[in-house]
């Protein structure tokens, strides 16, 4: 895309979109929005840069290899958190971490960790799907 306006807007809003995505991820168990919404928003932040600045300009960071790594790590962490319930809790997916005080950041037990893992997995998968479909930019 050759539009200078689009480039300025994409560069400016990249950090804001990313910050809002991380906010939704971290506060998913306290307020509205959760891991999935945060992950999709982070994907959107990366995709606006890829679409406007071009795939080659950002290929050092946003490429298929990194996207694969993030997708597998996120989903793997989700499985690991669920499986650890066998050892530290009563069953698979049980809430084995202290639930803490509600309405504070350190609350929710495994729900907070699930949010982070789901956000990472979703962002990785969606970026990977986009980069695979539009390979030539």
């Amino acid at each position: 895309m050759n539009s200078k306006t689009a480039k300025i807007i994409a560069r400016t809003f990249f950090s804001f979109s990313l910050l809002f995505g991380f906010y939704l991820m971290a506060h998913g168990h306290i307020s509205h929005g959760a891991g999935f919404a945060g992950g999709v928003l982070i994907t959107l932040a990366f995709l606006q840069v890829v679409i406007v600045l071009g795939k080659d300009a950002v290929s050092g960071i946003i490429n298929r290899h990194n996207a694969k790594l993030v997708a597998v790590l996120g989903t793997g962490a989700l499985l690991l958190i669920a499986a650890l319930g066998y050892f530290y809790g009563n069953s698979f997916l049980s809430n084995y971490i202290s639930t803490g005080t509600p309405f504070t950041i350190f609350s929710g037990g495994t729900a907070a960790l699930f949010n982070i893992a789901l956000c990472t997995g979703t962002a990785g998968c969606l970026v990977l799907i986009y980069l695979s479909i539009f390979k030539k930019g």
Partner: protein
Amino acid sequence: MISIQVLLVFMIASAAIAVEANDLFASVIALGVLGLELSLACLLLKSPDTAIILLVLEMIALAVLAKAVTKQGSKPVRDLDPLSSVTFIAFAVLFVTICVKAFAGLPAFGSPLMKLGDIYASGAVEKTGASNIVAAVMFNFRGLDTLIAAMLLLLTAIGIVHITDKKE
């Protein structure tokens, strides 16, 4: 509730434009407007979590569809032949008839039975420590659903990577 009904009229109009527009790019834009209206409807029905996800997903879908359409060139959609229109109308009438019969048996809108919902809503914050009850249900009571949804997303990504790699 009047705002929902007004929004519904706009949603039907956007959907009709998306289906009937001759230009493919106009259809994509109409689809984006429809998604925005759906997100607003969720907000009015007091479901902000769904509204956020719908809004953001709609943006991604719009970006991908717009890119795909502009890449292919905006070709006019071919006109439908009379036979397919008649078939469409016949199936639409059948669908509406079945829907009317199926929805007649449901409890009235706004007064759900809340058998399972009552258990979730009462004491979910104390049980899980998560003050957002939607997150408490998603990650605790229905954790397996969320886990399988994430697996499904990864499976979709693997499938797309496999197919696009094979094409080269």
